[in-house]
């Protein structure tokens, strides 16, 4: 089972926040990653731990393909559950694709394959590093 992410989508500019539900209640901030300011790690200011992801300031409708290319070059390790999307053990690129299909393309009737049925597009690391940089 992956770590659970809560999803919040802002349809005004097609932006999302994905936050770990088991994160500690500590101040957080958007940290740059290697994703051309199209995707941010939400980090705890106190520990530096990544507690979520966001494309704040972007627009998934226009940034999706570029973002997928960047995630292909630099995959983000880890598997996550996103109940709002019916996803279990999903990689971040799968989650963003599901958000794009559901909220940007409006494919509300899309059924996502179960974790067992899906072909993982990205390899996941055996051990997740604490430091994503």
């Amino acid at each position, binding site marked *: 089972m992956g770590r659970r992410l809560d999803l*919040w989508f*802002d349809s*005004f*500019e097609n932006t999302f*926040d994905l*936050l770990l539900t088991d994160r500690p*209640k*500590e*101040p*957080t*901030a*958007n*940290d*740059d990653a290697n994703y051309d*300011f199209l995707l941010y790690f*939400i*980090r705890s*200011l*106190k520990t*530096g731990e990544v507690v979520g992801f966001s494309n*704040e*300031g*972007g*627009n998934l409708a226009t940034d999706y393909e570029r973002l997928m290319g960047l995630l292909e070059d630099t995959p983000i390790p880890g598997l996550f559950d996103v109940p709002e999307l019916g996803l279990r053990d999903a990689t971040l690129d799968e989650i963003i694709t599901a958000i794009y299909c559901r909220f940007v393309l409006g494919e509300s009737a899309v059924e996502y394959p179960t974790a067992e049925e899906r072909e993982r597009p990205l390899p996941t690391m055996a051990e997740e590093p604490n430091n994503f940089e």
Partner: protein
Amino acid sequence: MVADVINWIQEEETLDGRLQRITTFLENEGYFLPSPKNVDRSEQGDTHFMYGQSLTVEYTVVDQGGRKVYHYHEIGVDHIMLRRIRRDEEWTLEHISSIPRILRRGKLILDELDKVIYQSRRTYMSPTGERYSLRVIIRRSWQGIWYVATFHPRPARR
């Protein structure tokens, strides 16, 4: 807890009602929401239509790149403030009045055709004592209007 606060704010149907509840929430948390100074309010109250929504001009600022940047009341309340509260980052909202200064004197981080990112030159202290800077992201709409899209904290480099 946060969800309760967000629901309570969103129960207010009007934008000003939601802003009043946000102000009350912040005051209860010990924060205040100052108004920005040295901004041009000559177009305040004008409405623009963008992304299927009518937006009300709060003020404009000319940034260091010479762009006239609009700050819309609706984006400020429903998209910037609510997002910060939803993410437990309400402590940054006390500095929301710094947006014009960051646009005029901040560090230029990214300059793209339709998106520019500025960062505050000064750093601030979080409630638990960590330092952070503030970022302002402006975007250009398809009508060619530059506007403040968001305002968020970023960890200061140690």
